[in-house]
């Protein structure tokens, strides 16, 4: 298929960006979206132009590095996939595709489609851990039974890949699905209880400090999340937060 691409080009974080049109031809429907971008970039390199910078790494939907906003949707029109797993069979010959970076005040553009997600790092550093040193003397892994249900729910929350699609999809640029997932993982496990109060307070405080907006329950994040992280995690975080503030 032949396609027109409208791509956001921006030299660096200070430069003013703009949409630029490109044409690609003979795209196979079996290609992934990023392989289509490879074709474009090979074309640009061969004509001496600078290729489009975009984040990507594992190309199997798990590292969370890729972050394109395609035709107005984070990771494009398919559901339950990252950009690297989006396939060209979702598009038609002659289509015009608009490709932008994830947009949020807390995710400044570094170059073209590459954004800075350090805000997520700082939120994790504020409390996204259990304080246990490595010793080889922790108790046996089976000494605390955890119900299968709780373990499975914790796993569902922990499956977040930290890509930021939730933020990019939210009209408030809220990071509550991301933070809620981490808070939930630990809240559902006995190991997470000891630090539960401080964790949720610190992570939420950092989230606010980074300039992410609040949740107004539109649910766009859940729809666009490539890993299907559920809104329940936001509700659980709110409960944890409320109970933490009451505990002082």
């Amino acid at each position: 298929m032949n396609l027109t691409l409208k791509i956001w080009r921006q030299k660096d974080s200070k430069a003013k960006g703009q949409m630029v049109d490109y044409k690609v031809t003979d795209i196979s429907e079996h290609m992934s979206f990023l392989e289509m971008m490879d074709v474009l970039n090979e074309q640009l390199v061969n004509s001496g132009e600078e290729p489009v910078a975009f984040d990507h790494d594992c190309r199997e939907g798990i590292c969370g590095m890729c972050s394109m906003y395609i035709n107005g949707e984070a990771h494009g029109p398919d559901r339950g996939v990252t950009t690297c797993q989006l396939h060209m069979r979702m598009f038609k010959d002659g289509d015009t595709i608009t490709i932008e970076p994830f947009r949020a005040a807390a995710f400044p553009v570094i170059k073209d489609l590459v954004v800075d997600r350090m805000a997520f790092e700082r939120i994790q550093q504020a409390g996204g851990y259990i304080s246990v040193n490595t010793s080889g003397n922790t108790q046996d892994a089976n000494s605390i039974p955890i119900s299968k249900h709780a373990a499975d729910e914790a796993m569902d929350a922990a499956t977040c890949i930290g890509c930021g699609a939730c933020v990019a999809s939210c009209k408030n640029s809220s990071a509550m699905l991301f933070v809620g997932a981490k808070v939930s993982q630990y809240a559902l496990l006995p190991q997470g209880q000891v630090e539960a109060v401080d964790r949720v307070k610190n992570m939420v405080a950092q989230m606010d400090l980074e300039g992410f907006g609040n949740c107004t329950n539109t649910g766009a994040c859940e729809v666009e999340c490539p890993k299907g992280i559920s809104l329940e995690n936001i509700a659980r975080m709110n409960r944890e937060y409320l109970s933490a503030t009451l505990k002082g």
Partner: protein
Amino acid sequence: MALDSKVPKGSIKDKWTDYKNHIDLVNPANKRHIDVIVVGTGLAGGSAAATLAELGYNVKAFAYQDSPRRAHSIAAQGGINAAKNYQGDGDSTYRLFYDTVKGGDYRSREANVYRLAEVSTNIIDQCVAQGVPFARDYGGLLDNRSFGGVLVSRTFYAKGQTGQQLLLGAYSAMNRQIARGKIEMFNRHEMLDVVIVDGKARGIIARNLITGEIERHSAHAVVVGSGGYGNVYFLSTNAMGSNATAAWKIHKKGAYFANPCYTQIHPTCIPRSGDYQSKLTLMSESLRNDGRIWVPKNMEDVMAIREGRKKPTDLSEDERDYYLERRYPAFGNLVPRDVASRAAKERCDAGYGVNATGEAVYLDFASAFERYGREQAKIHNITNPSDEKIYELGQAIVEAKYGNLFQMYEKIIDQNPYETPMMIYPAVHYTMGGVWVDYNLMTTIPGCYCIGEANFSDHGANRLGASALMQGLADGYFVLPYTIGDYLSTDIRTGKISTDSKEFEEAEKEVTERINFFVNNKGTKSVDYFHKKLGKVMWDKAGMSRNAQGLTEAMAEIKAIREEFWKDVSVPGTANEMNPELEKAGRVADFLELGELFAKDALMREESCGGHFREESAELDGPQKGEAKRNDEDFAFVAAWEYKGEPADAVLHKEELEFKDIELKQRSYK
């Protein structure tokens, strides 16, 4: 320099404990004055960085990604081995040790492997304490699954995302130390050289990938945990950015590179579909627990399937060749990876491949649907269930176990694997070879350590499933933090290492000159052009089976590609900005050297062992006819190569392998 593995004396069971009791320690007050650089933040680097910081060292950690959480360990699916014996099926430290040495085709160092098996149980305890949500059974205890090449169930897992969960555990431990200021994290930075001062590794030169700035970083020791070199094949299951540059740079500065030819070609990957393909996708080996691998028995059926006249589900049981079950009745579909891969290649080379490229076999879950379905029907007291009901109940169980893998397959291939068998084909996955290290995990450069997939140590010539995660975390959490103390104990009076020395200046100059060369070369061909060309030579001549003629040709061809690369590579953009093409150019330049050494090593090793299959060395008759033939008399050694300029001139050093606790046998899975 003679190779000294520094394996401690004593019985294998006591070596590690005795050794730990007698090595020098650094007192907590002194640790505050010692800096350690960790390059790479996957399972090995991330766990090492966190643990060293917990101990009190000042850690500087480097990742080329925008977060440690994105290292490619994240993509490991199936699980992690540990000799917990929670299933009561006879597992033990010795058995894990034995399986790993045997699985590695007797080409690993006994003492290292025993230690690995010994600390494996600590890893599970540690990860559970960190909040890693491993799969559990209904009683609330940890669940296990089995993996290829072993007869017990010792693999712990978190759905099909075990690597992700373990990495996020190590990442959380890192975050705690970053928050405390004990780890200084350098995201989007790439190490471009190691700096040696007075014979010791004392720092690195790194490039800030956002600004292009070249930076000097000093430390008392440098730890490289930068992963494997599978991307030398261009197409592999590695991440696009996975590279050998850090490992190769230390090799060029004096670290020997061991067994580069030991590569694992993983049997269960999604087949390739076209020339545009940028990477191959693996599906966990755990699928072989429940999936049965087959191709049609008759050539007419192969043709009918390829032409779309028949569907695989149209073939009756006796029209199918379950070739692994046929050839290896004892292990069946759970033979080790190298054996499964070669068997698939054998069938496809014979013309029985089931897709258009002729490079695919079926992985079929129909019998698992039925088996689980009947079991569930019993559990739910459904009498006389219909076939549809059984299928439906069985599918639900398979979905719970492998749902994400089935979904991934469907997204890529656009076929529903619940309705039709999956198609799979082997792909490059893991590299057992790597930087040579002694028992302390130190390279031949004093003060320079290498951990995880980047080193050569524990898997011999073939890695068993679910052992990579085990080794990465063993090295980072439980081995390196001890052994590095022994070395650093002599450094307590050294003080801060200055970056103003002539050694730093020279290293920086070299790095800058190379970068400037690339951006000014203005050639006519892209970096990927050369990378793909290299990959094709590697796959065709140093892939699943190898011979002397092909390897000799490969060496010459790779050298020619390298020469063309340095003349004609085109790198747009400038040095002082984010420039992905420039990053790739540096990595491919290193792969173009490593590839040649790889072929040289494969040519030297005139035996078949593990992932290295030499066509000249196969059993000619008897029950093992056609199987790989190892040569213990002449090749029971680690090949450690010393850099001498051109890869062809590398000098071989041998570390003879002694097997005191395990008898060398032919690896039979029949």
